[in-house]
């Protein structure tokens, strides 16, 4: 009897032990450029009975998230260690190590690069700037106030425009001649994005001449372009404005010993010889001393302007305070102005929670103090339209610039709008397209942001929108923030047509906004 009791106890212990087999979760806050690496991490984690999840954010968002919510994550993996240093206020990040590196470069359609004389030699930022000023070159780049690749290139531009001083001070950023130079340069941007990987995908959709991105993503893009039989990009490494992303992976110490052990194993695995070799095959620079030994030529292809033997000699990044000020100035002064149309759903089904969310969201963008916390401020040259709608268009309001009283007034109108009736999501978007045609689109980065919860059930339809978009002949993306039961099919269709994207407004509204605004 006693023995059987003990056996039962042992059995219970054994079965308790088997409960542990349920995989533990491990959440990594990561830059989007690490997307292709997820499967490598996943494979390793499965063997260790851990379920690794990636949350992809722009590097600046990673910094903001570390400042506020470090306890939500187990590890952080931004494109560059600078964002860990700036974000890790509580000093929770340990064991940060660079897994690989990749320089931020200009990729220009090869024939255009040849025509502009930017091949086979050292190129300075000034030469690229000249081509942009002469309107011979337009490019797409991620938002400097969101993504590391955009921020790196932007800082490279600042150095070059300031005449390559040894270091940049806060006073330098106030110089009027800098403002002129940098706004000219950024005016050459025809589309923007909050993430580097998305920017690469956008480029592959066609119609663009050049982009600023990581060498690794340029290689990915070129491999795809070659497969499609299209002209590859030629990579230009500006000698006086080069920044290298060092892809540091750090552990966030929230006191879980098992996670810490797993992290160290994962990091060691990623730094092991076979994986480092695999990463190099994927266009990431690995190894030590900045040397690419035995780099595969089909990846680091000399025909694309890549020279693995050349020493990459980057600029020095400015002090932390100067970097942050530069990002704020980018957002409020230097970037190409935004022309933004907010189409807000006030149909009956939005009553209550969802309409409150929309109002709160608009407050976050329009109240400049709140927006400033997330680098979401408007600039004096921005133009903002708000089009509330239900079954028909309710009204249309316009604000030019970023003056607080006008923003507050606009916000008041939004708050006072009540919900009622059916839903037509197409009419407001078509109106926005028509309005955008009346503005000189070369001076703005346009975007339409539709916030809705419902299925369109009255008024105009998708075919009407398609006709309007095609007639417009402008690259105006529609970004869709969905609440509640919004029809995924309808929204996805619009996103596809316009090179836009769909975001979930209920999960993380600030995040959705940061992403959407990254695109204009």
């Amino acid at each position, binding site marked *: 009897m006693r*023995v*059987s009791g*003990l*056996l039962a106890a*042992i059995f219970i212990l054994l079965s308790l032990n088997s409960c542990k087999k349920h995989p533990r979760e491990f959440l990594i806050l990561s830059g989007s450029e690490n997307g292709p690496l997820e499967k490598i991490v996943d494979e390793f984690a499965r063997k260790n009975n851990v379920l690794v999840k990636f949350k992809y954010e722009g590097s600046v968002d990673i910094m903001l998230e570390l400042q506020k919510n470090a306890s939500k994550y187990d590890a952080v993996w931004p494109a560059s*260690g*600078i964002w860990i*240093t700036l974000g890790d206020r509580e000093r929770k990040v*340990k064991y*940060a*190590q*660079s897994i690989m*590196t990749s320089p931020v470069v200009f990729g220009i359609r090869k024939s255009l690069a040849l025509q502009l004389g930017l091949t086979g030699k050292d190129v300075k930022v000034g030469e690229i700037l000249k081509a942009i000023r002469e309107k011979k070159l337009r490019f797409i780049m991620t938002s400097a106030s969101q993504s590391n690749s955009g921020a790196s290139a932007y800082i490279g531009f600042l150095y070059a425009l300031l005449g*390559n001083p*040894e*270091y*940049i*001070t806060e006073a330098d950023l106030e110089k009027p001649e800098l403002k002129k130079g940098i706004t000219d340069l950024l005016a050459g941007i025809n589309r923007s994005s909050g993430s580097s990987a998305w920017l690469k995908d956008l480029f592959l959709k066609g119609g663009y001449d050049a982009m600023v991105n990581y060498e690794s993503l340029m290689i990915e893009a070129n491999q795809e372009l070659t497969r499609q039989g299209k002209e590859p990009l030629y990579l230009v490494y500006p*000698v*006086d404005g*080069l920044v*290298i992303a*060092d892809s*540091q992976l750090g552990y966030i110490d929230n006191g879980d010993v098992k996670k810490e052990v797993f992290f160290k194993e994962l990091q060691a695995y990623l730094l092991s*010889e076979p994986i480092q070799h695999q990463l190099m095959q994927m266009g990431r620079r690995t190894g*030590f*001393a*900045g*040397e690419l030994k035995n780099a595969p030529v089909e990846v680091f292809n000399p025909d694309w302007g890549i020279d693995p033997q*050349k*020493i*990459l*000699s*980057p*600029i*020095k*990044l*400015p*002090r*932390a*305070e*100067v*970097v942050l000020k530069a990002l704020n100035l980018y957002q409020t002064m230097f970037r190409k102005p935004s022309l933004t149309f907010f189409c807000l759903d006030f149909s009956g089904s939005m009553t209550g929670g969802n309409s409150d969310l929309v109002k709160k969201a608009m407050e976050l963008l329009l109240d400049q103090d709140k927006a400033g916390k997330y680098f979401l401020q408007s600039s004096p040259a921005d133009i903002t339209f708000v089009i509330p709608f239900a079954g028909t268009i309710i009204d249309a309001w316009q604000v030019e610039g970023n003056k607080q009283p006008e923003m507050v007034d606009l916000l008041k109108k939004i708050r006072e709008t009540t919900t009622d009736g059916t839903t037509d999501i197409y009419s407001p978007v078509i109106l926005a397209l028509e309005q955008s045609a009346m503005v000189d689109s070369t001076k703005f980065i346009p975007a339409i942001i539709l916030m809705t919860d419902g299925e369109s059930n009255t008024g105009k339809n998708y075919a009407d929108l398609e006709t309007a978009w095609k007639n417009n002949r402008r690259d105006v993306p529609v970004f869709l923030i969905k609440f509640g039961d919004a029809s995924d099919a309808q929204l996805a269709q619009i996103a596809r047509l316009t090179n836009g994207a769909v975001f979930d407004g209920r999960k993380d509204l600030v995040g959705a906004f940061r992403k959407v605004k990254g695109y204009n």
Partner: protein
Amino acid sequence: MRGILIGLGILLLAAAIGFGYWYYRNEKPEIHIRGIIGSEKSSFLENDRVKTILKKKYGIVVDYVRAGSIEMVNEEAKTGTDFLWPSSQVALEIFKLKQGDKIVRSENIFNSPIVIYSWDIVVDALLKTGIVKKEMSTYYIIDMPGLLKMIREGKKWSDIGLTQLYGKITVTTTDPTRSNSGIMFAGLVAIVLKGGDVVVEADLPQVLPEVKEFFARQGFMQSTSGVLFEQFLKTGVGQYPLMGGYESQSIEFSRMHPDFWPKVKNQIKTLYPVPTVWSEHPMIILNKKATLLIDALKDEEIQKIAWEEHGFRTGLMGVQNDPKILQVDGIPASVTKIVPMPRASVMVNIIEALADAK
């Protein structure tokens, strides 16, 4: 019947494991000593051989958290903290000034000189300028004022023949307002500006502007020496032609990455400034029960591991460190041209001025 036998077997096994565990736990009376250490010593304390000696021979288990050297001495010492182990004498002195009554005992355990890490092509160029000189197999920066002058005058790498490197000559260090190696370097720069002599309060108006300028030129600075050294190795000569650090770093790295080290050891050079300063590692005991730790760390075998595997020179008088045992070339048996760091009150002034300059 068979089931009962298996059951009994499991039972016996469980009893054996239980007894083994009990026996193991009671092998030696054990004391846990808790403290705060500078991060550069964590690999040493994690070394299994060190842990075993501490436990088997001295019955000590060390629990620690990491913090910056200055940070740990500025904070009000908590009752549960048995010791502090910063990486400079300056930190000890600051602690003495502020919370000196809490010290039970303090003693220096290790030393490591501040060095400048560099690459073969850069060292070749510096040899030609006469700033660096090779004696035996060791490289010395015999003209530190000359190096600082080049930096002050904004000379470019291309001016000394390194056309493949972009920008102006600088030495990259960690942020002296956050990290000890940066502080040590700030002290060293001040000393060189004073003509290689001890820096006192009265010298500050003369040396401070250039010390500030030296760090301003670096732009963004890393906050820990470990991350900086790792980046130095990873990104190479293009990003970090010259980098300030501890001598111990390359020695420890060579032991921890034996497969990789041979591939780069001929490119990486360790330069010894003349004069240089010691980064000392004083153990500050705050609780009487922890004094045993000082004796344990002075154990001959532990000191040997500290040198051979982690690059810490002994803090003990009369003990020599043999560089022949190391995988790193150019490490001298002893470093003799040392100037004492400025006093704590002077360093506090320098650190505050650098923080204000931000």
